[in-house]
Each structure stands twice: as structure tokens, then as C-alpha cells.
């Protein structure tokens, strides 16, 4: 409280000095203005780009996904082809029992591109046999009011039920028709529609709606296709118990390598040592992602650091000039009873006032920069990064500018505080 009583007149004084030297103050602030503006704008835009990249990786199944696919036997094992059983539900059971790092296993049996027929209308789409675990592994869901997904019971009973991608529905049923409960024919077999997968583009969760140019573009394949119980697919279309692959979701992406190794050993043991499968991950994507993020952070830090350093020099410069002009004032203040600490506080407060006002102007400028960057990115990229200003980043930007102002103000303030009053009063 007492300290504030000493600072308050110092702040008022600082504002008065600013007002008296408008142009000089604005020039001295320019470094801080640019520093804060570039810091906030860059962090915001990079966050937007990183966020968009994350969505892309998510669309690829996320970095926590491991994919197991069927593969030709290597040359040295070709003579054992007779023994190969391929990937089956038995692998699913083995992995579930032995690899605790894996949270969900989604067996997938590709039926292929099939014609879906409803009372005169028809469309072709990919049909795949899956289980209930498809949703967590693919990071998909069925929105409330759009039916339900394939259940364990459907798989157990080999039910003829089907879940449609949202893009398939209008092609089969036209607009404004609820397809849940309707019957679709595939190869003459009748399937009851039980649900519709979430629409990715329209959900607003994964891809921001501002990305209007991406609609019908790169995300479209995620909304097409149809899913049936894996057992139904195997028994009624494929004719054997083989799967086309497995999707595995692990809880902790950091343990990806361990999970891959354990999964490989488990399958290999179950397959009597036959390498009739391949394991792939999005690790390379993850690695690229991390490199990109690190590069952005490094360049961001460099730009912000340099501009704030320059801003600090600007403030220190103008404070030293201001003190040189006001040596007599310092002498007078000391003569009437000011202590060294009073003058230290006064000039430090002045530096803080300059940096706070500069920081605030910088925030306003950053809003303009972000708006411009958004405009350019949306023109340039179909899935352009859309960045939104975060108040937390703005607060941090302002805090940075205040810290810079205070650090830059210490030396000039110390000089003012240590001036000899007699010398100062003699100064012309």
C-alpha cells in the first residue's frame, strides 16, 4: 500500500512526460510495439497452423494409432505359405490379452466397393466390416439423434445392420429423409440402417467452418463409406475368417515404439513365426510434426526475442535522453527531500508506463496482423490455418513488454537515483 502511494504519483508523472513528448515517446515505443505485435501475431498464427496440423494427423488416425495389415510372406518364408492363416480375430484376442499398452483394437474386414440399392436409387461406396472398437480407434462417433453404432451383439449375432457415412445418405435417400430404420440391399442381401457416422466437415469440431474451401475437398473421403459387423462381412461376403487389417489405439503416444514391438512379437508368436503381416505407424508424420513445431517455436522465439531486445534498447535510449534533459529536475527533487529510491521508482515507473502503452498499441497492431495473415492463408491453402487471438497470449505479450520495459528502465533509473544533487542543480 505504501509502495503504491509512492508509485502512483510516479505513474502520473510518467504519463505527463509521455504527453509532453508525444513524437519521441511514440518512436521509443515503436520497438516494443513491433515486438509485442510480432510476438502475439506469430504465436497466434503458429498455434493455428499447429492446431490445423494436429487435425490433419488426427484425420490420419492420430499419432496414437498403429495399423496392422496383411502382407506377402518374405522370400525366405515363401515355401511356408500353406501355413499362413493371415490376420484373424484370434490375433485380436492375443493382442488384447498380452499388449496392455493397447487400449482399443479395431479389426477390419474390407468387403470392397459395393453397390448400395434403395428403391430405385443406388450408389457405390466402400463397405468394411468392423466392431464397436472402430469408433475409438478412428476417433469417430455417432451424433445423438443419428441412430447408434454397430454393437458387440451385432457382431456376435452376425446381424445384417449397416452404418452409413454422412455423404452416402443424400445420394441414397435424398435430402430431409431420416434413413435410420430403412433397408438397403447389397448383393441382394437386406441391411437395416442403424446409424450415421458424424459428419466431419460440418461438425465444427475438427475443421473450423471458416475453411469453406475445404468442403468437398480433402476431407470428403472421411464421410463416405459404409460399415457392417465384421462377422457379417466375413461370413456373408468374404467367405473366410481373414481380416484385412487391424487398427490399434494406444493410450500414450510416447510409448508407441514399445507398443509396436510388443504387438509385433505377439502376432509373430501366434503366426508361428510367419511374417505375413506389416505394422505401420504415423510416427514419421509425428516426427515431422515435432520438427515443424520445434522449427516454428525456434524462429518465433528468435523473432520475438530480437524485437523485444530492440524494444528494450529503444526504451533505455529514450530514458537516458530524458534523464539528461531533466538533470536539473532531479536536482530540485532531491533538494526538496526526494531520496534516491524515490527517483529510482519515478524513472522506473516512467519506463513501465512507456512499455505498457507500447504493449497495448502492439496488441492492437497484432489483431490487424492476424486478420491479414488469416486472409492470406485462406487464399493460399485449401486447408489454410485459421488463427484466433487468445486472451492468454495477449496477456503474456503485454507481460513480456512490461518486463522488457522494467529491465530497460533499471539502468537509467539507477543513474537518476545516484546523481549528486549539487551537481544536478548546477547543470545548465
Amino acid at each position, binding site marked *: 500500500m505504501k509502495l503504491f502511494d509512492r508509485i502512483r*504519483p510516479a505513474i502520473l508523472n510518467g504519463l505527463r512526460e509521455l504527453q509532453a513528448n508525444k513524437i519521441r515517446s511514440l518512436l521509443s515505443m515503436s520497438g516494443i510495439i513491433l515486438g509485442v505485435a510480432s510476438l502475439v501475431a506469430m504465436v497466434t498464427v503458429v498455434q493455428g497452423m499447429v492446431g490445423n496440423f494436429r487435425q490433419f494427423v488426427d484425420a490420419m488416425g492420430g499419432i496414437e494409432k498403429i495399423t496392422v495389415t496383411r502382407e506377402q510372406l518374405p522370400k525366405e518364408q515363401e515355401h511356408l505359405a500353406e501355413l499362413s492363416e493371415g490376420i484373424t480375430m484370434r490375433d485380436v484376442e492375443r493382442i488384447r490379452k498380452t499388449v496392455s499398452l493397447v487400449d482399443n483394437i479395431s479389426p477390419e474386414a474390407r468387403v470392397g466397393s459395393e453397390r448400395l440399392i434403395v428403391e430405385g436409387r443406388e450408389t457405390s461406396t466402400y463397405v468394411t466390416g468392423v466392431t464397436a472398437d472402430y469408433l475409438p480407434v478412428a476417433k469417430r462417433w455417432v451424433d445423438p439423434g443419428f441412430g447408434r453404432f454397430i454393437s458387440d451383439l451385432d457382431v456376435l449375432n452376425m446381424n445384417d445392420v449397416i452404418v452409413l457415412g454422412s455423404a452416402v445418405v443424400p445420394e441414397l435417400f435424398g435430402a430431409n429423409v431420416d434413413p435410420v430404420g430403412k433397408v438397403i440391399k447389397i448383393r441382394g442381401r437386406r441391411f437395416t440402417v442403424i446409424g450415421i457416422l458424424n459428419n466431419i466437415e460440418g461438425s465444427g469440431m475438427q475443421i473450423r467452418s471458416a475453411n469453406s474451401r475445404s468442403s468437398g475437398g480433402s476431407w470428403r473421403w472421411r464421410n463416405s463409406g459404409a460399415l457392417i459387423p465384421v462377422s457379417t462381412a466375413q461370413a456373408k461376403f468374404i467367405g473366410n475368417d481373414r481380416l484385412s487389417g487391424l487398427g490399434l489405439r494406444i493410450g500414450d503416444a510416447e510409448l508407441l515404439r514399445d507398443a509396436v514391438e510388443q504387438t509385433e512379437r505377439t502376432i509373430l508368436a501366434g503366426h508361428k513365426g510367419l511374417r505375413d503381416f506389416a505394422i505401420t505407424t504415423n510416427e514419421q508424420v509425428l516426427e515431422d510434426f515435432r520438427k515443424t513445431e520445434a522449427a516454428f517455436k525456434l524462429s518465433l522465439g528468435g523473432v520475438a526475442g530480437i524485437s523485444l531486445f530492440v524494444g528494450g534498447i529503444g526504451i533505455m535510449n529514450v530514458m537516458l535522453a530524458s534523464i539528461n534533459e531533466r538533470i536539473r529536475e532531479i536536482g*530540485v527533487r532531491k533538494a526538496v527531500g526526494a531520496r534516491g529510491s524515490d527517483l529510482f521508482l519515478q524513472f522506473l515507473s516512467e519506463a513501465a508506463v512507456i512499455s505498457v502503452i507500447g504493449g497495448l498499441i502492439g496488441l492492437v497492431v497484432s489483431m490487424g496482423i492476424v486478420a491479414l495473415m488469416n486472409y492470406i492463408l485462406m487464399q493460399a491453402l485449401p486447408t489454410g490455418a485459421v488463427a484466433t487471438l487468445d486472451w492468454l497470449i495477449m496477456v503474456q505479450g503485454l507481460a513480456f513488454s512490461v518486463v522488457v520495459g522494467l529491465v530497460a528502465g533499471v539502468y537509467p533509473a539507477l543513474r537518476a537515483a545516484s546523481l549528486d544533487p549539487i551537481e544536478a542543480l548546477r547543470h545548465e
Partner: protein
Amino acid sequence: MSALIAIRGLRKAYVMGDETVHALAGVDLDFQQGEFVAILGPSGSGKSTLMHILGFMDTPTEGSIVFDGQEVAKIEPDLRAWYRSNRVGFVFQSFNLLPRLTVLENVALPMLYRENSDPVANEAAATIALERVGMSHRLDHRPNQLSGGERQRVAIARAIVGSPSIIFADEPTGNLDVKNIDRILDLLGSLIKEGITVVLVTHDLAVAEKAHRVISMRAGLVQEDRTR
């Protein structure tokens, strides 16, 4: 009655290059409460050094100063600042008002650096001090809107705002015309009625003659100390 200030054997030496300058070479003086004293001497006589030391802006190399019963010759800078804001007032030749502050703010300035400083009380004290010097009609003016005589009256108001024990006026009339010289000297002389000791520091004999006691200095020593 003991003196407000009693100095004994006061010396001040400066080292300038290879040479040591003895600005004060052993000064003994007493100042009583409510005295109107002039310290007279040419430049280099040590009168300014004496004023700075007695005004707590400087410290002596040697000697004793008893101010109001306290030995103050070798006190810490912050305590000296306390004496400057609570016990001493300064009036300068070139007024030394702060150009950005109003008349009222300039006069209230010494109060800002006191403990428990309160803006409202400071303004009230400044208003009273400005009334005392006849400047209460110019509270919101800036110093550059005032004449020299008016500026010096404002400076005197600033010196008396904190009810000091002693005021040092360093060539207070050096920048004024004849008419204002008498007015300012009369104003300063009238302050002793309030128990304030007024010390005029000047090289001008005519100005010094206004005081009741004239101390003449030369080469760092008191040459003559006469009371009229």
C-alpha cells in the same frame, strides 16, 4: 537558549586533479531560531559549500554540526533526505520550478516525499503557502506563464510549505529587477516572525545589508560576523 544549528571546526576538502582545495578551512558558527542572516562573500569563499552542507545536500570532511540538538555531520543519505524534506527549505537564484508542473504542484512537491504523504493534505498546505506569498491567484498556471518575481514567490512558497526550521536562499534576487528585489527580500525577512531562520547567501553587499546579521567569508574561513 541553545542554537538551532551549532557548527564547530567544519572543514570541507575537494580533491581536484593533483590539488586539494579546502573549501571550508575550519568554521565555527551558531544560528539561532528566527534569525535573518546573510552569508556574504565572493565566489570561491566557501559560502555555497557551507550552505550545501547545512542544507543536508553535502557532508563535511571534518567537524561537527548539531542541528536541533542532534549531531548530523555524518548521517546516511536517506536521513539527509528526511532533513531536507522536513526541516530545510531552499530558494534558488534561477527559481528551479519544474516546468511541467502547475504552480500548486510545484509548491506541493516537498510534501510528496514525506512519510504518510496525502494528496489532499499536500494541496491544502500548498494553497496556504501560496496565500502567504500572495500567489493564490495563479494556482493552475505553469511557471513559464509567470514573471521572474512571481516565480521567486512561488519558489519561496515551496520552501515554506513544509514548515521548515531554516530556509537557505542562494542569490535569490540575482535574476530579478530592482522593484522585485526589495519585495522578495522583504518577504524572506518577514518569515522570521514565524520562527523560521532565514539564511541569505549572496555576494552582493546591498542584499546582505537587509539581513540582521552578516557573516563575511573568505578563503573558507569566517572573516567577520557582525550583528546590526
